[in-house]
C-alpha cells in the first residue's frame, strides 16, 4: 500500500512537480488571542520549521523532504478548511473556587461564583464539566488527599443542587500534589486551597 502510494506520487511528480495528488499540507495560523506558535515538520528525508502566521509547508511523500515554507493566503485557508473551522470548539472556561483552611467549606466569594459556573455551563450547553480538588501543603499528604476529595465532592453537591446533570460531571482530586502556587511543605497558601472547575 505504502509502496504503491509512493510509486504513484513519484510518477505524478515526474509529470507535474507542483500538483501532487497525495500528500500533507501543514499551515501555522494565529490562535484566538492572536498568538502564533511554532511547528516542526519532519519526514524520513528532512525537516522544515514554521514560525510565522500563515506559513505553510507541503510534504509530497514520506521519503521526500518537506517543501520550502510559503505563505498561504487567508482566503485560500478558509476555502480548504472551512468546514473544520466552522465546528472548532471554544476553549474551556476555568473557574477556581477557594476554601477555608482545613475545611471543605468554600469562602463566601467562591460560593457566589457557583452561579456563574452554572450560567457558563448553560450558555455553552456543556455536557462535560471537570471538578478537580486540591489543597495547600499544610498537614500530611494522605490527609490532604482526603481533604481534596471532600472539597471536590462538596462542589459536586452544589452543582447538582443547582441543576447540573450528574452525567455531565467528572471528579478528580490531587491532594497537595498540583498546587497553583508552588510552596515548601507545611506552608499555608490560600490560593492552593481550591477546586478547579473546567466547563467544556
Amino acid at each position, binding site marked *: 500500500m505504502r509502496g504503491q502510494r509512493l510509486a504513484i506520487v513519484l510518477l505524478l511528480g515526474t509529470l507535474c512537480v507542483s500538483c501532487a495528488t497525495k500528500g500533507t499540507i501543514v499551515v501555522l495560523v494565529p490562535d484566538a488571542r492572536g498568538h502564533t506558535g511554532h511547528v516542526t515538520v519532519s519526514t524520513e528525508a528532512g525537516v522544515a520549521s514554521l514560525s510565522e502566521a500563515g506559513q505553510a509547508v507541503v510534504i509530497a511523500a514520506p521519503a521526500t523532504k518537506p517543501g520550502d515554507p510559503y505563505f498561504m493566503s487567508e482566503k485560500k485557508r478558509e476555502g480548504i478548511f472551512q468546514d473544520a473551522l466552522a*465546528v472548532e*470548539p471554544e476553549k474551556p472556561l476555568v473557574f477556581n473556587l477557594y476554601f477555608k483552611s482545613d475545611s471543605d467549606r468554600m469562602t463566601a466569594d467562591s460560593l457566589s461564583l457557583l452561579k456563574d459556573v452554572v450560567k457558563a455551563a448553560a450558555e455553552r450547553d456543556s455536557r462535560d464539566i471537570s471538578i478537580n480538588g486540591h489543597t495547600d501543603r499544610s498537614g500530611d499528604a494522605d490527609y490532604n488527599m482526603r481533604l481534596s476529595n471532600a472539597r471536590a465532592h462538596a462542589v459536586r453537591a452544589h452543582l447538582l443542587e443547582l441543576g447540573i446533570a450528574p452525567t455531565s460531571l467528572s471528579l478528580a482530586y490531587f491532594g497537595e500534589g498540583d498546587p497553583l502556587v508552588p510552596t515548601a511543605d507545611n506552608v499555608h497558601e490560600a490560593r492552593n486551597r481550591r477546586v478547579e472547575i473546567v466547563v467544556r
Partner: protein
Amino acid sequence: MKFMIALLVLVSLVSVTGYAEPDNVIGSVKTVKGEAFVLRGEAKLRAEKGTRLFVQDMLQTGRDGSIGVILRDDSTVSMGSSSKLAMKDFDFRPSEGIFSMALNMIKGTFVVVSGRIAKLAPDSVKLETPDGIASVRGTKLLVKVK
C-alpha cells in the same frame, strides 16, 4: 487477570498520586454537524455532543459531516468532511509531570489548537500523517491530508 492487575495498580496509585477518572476519559465531543462517528474497537458509535473519548478511539466524518472535540489538556481538534483521525496516545498527568499526545491524521482536513501539554512539555505533541510528523510547540495549526 490483566484487568485485576490494572485495578490493583490503579488502587495502589490512588493514595500517592491522586485520583482522576478511572475510566481514562481523554476528552469529549463538543460540536457535530451531519454524520460523524467514533470508532471504538469493532463498534461504530454515532458521535453526539458529550460523547466521551478514550485513547485508541478513531473519529470519522461522512461526506457532509464535521466534528469538534475538546481534550483533557484543553486542546481542541476539529475536522471537516470525509476525514479520519486516530487518538493514538494521550497522557496528561500534571501532578506527576507526565505529558504526551499523538494524533494520527489518516485523511481529511483538521484544525488543532494545542493546550496545556504543548505548553508544559514543548514538542511532546505529535501530529502524524501518512507523509510525516508535525511536532507542535503551539498553538493553532491547519492540516490537510490528501
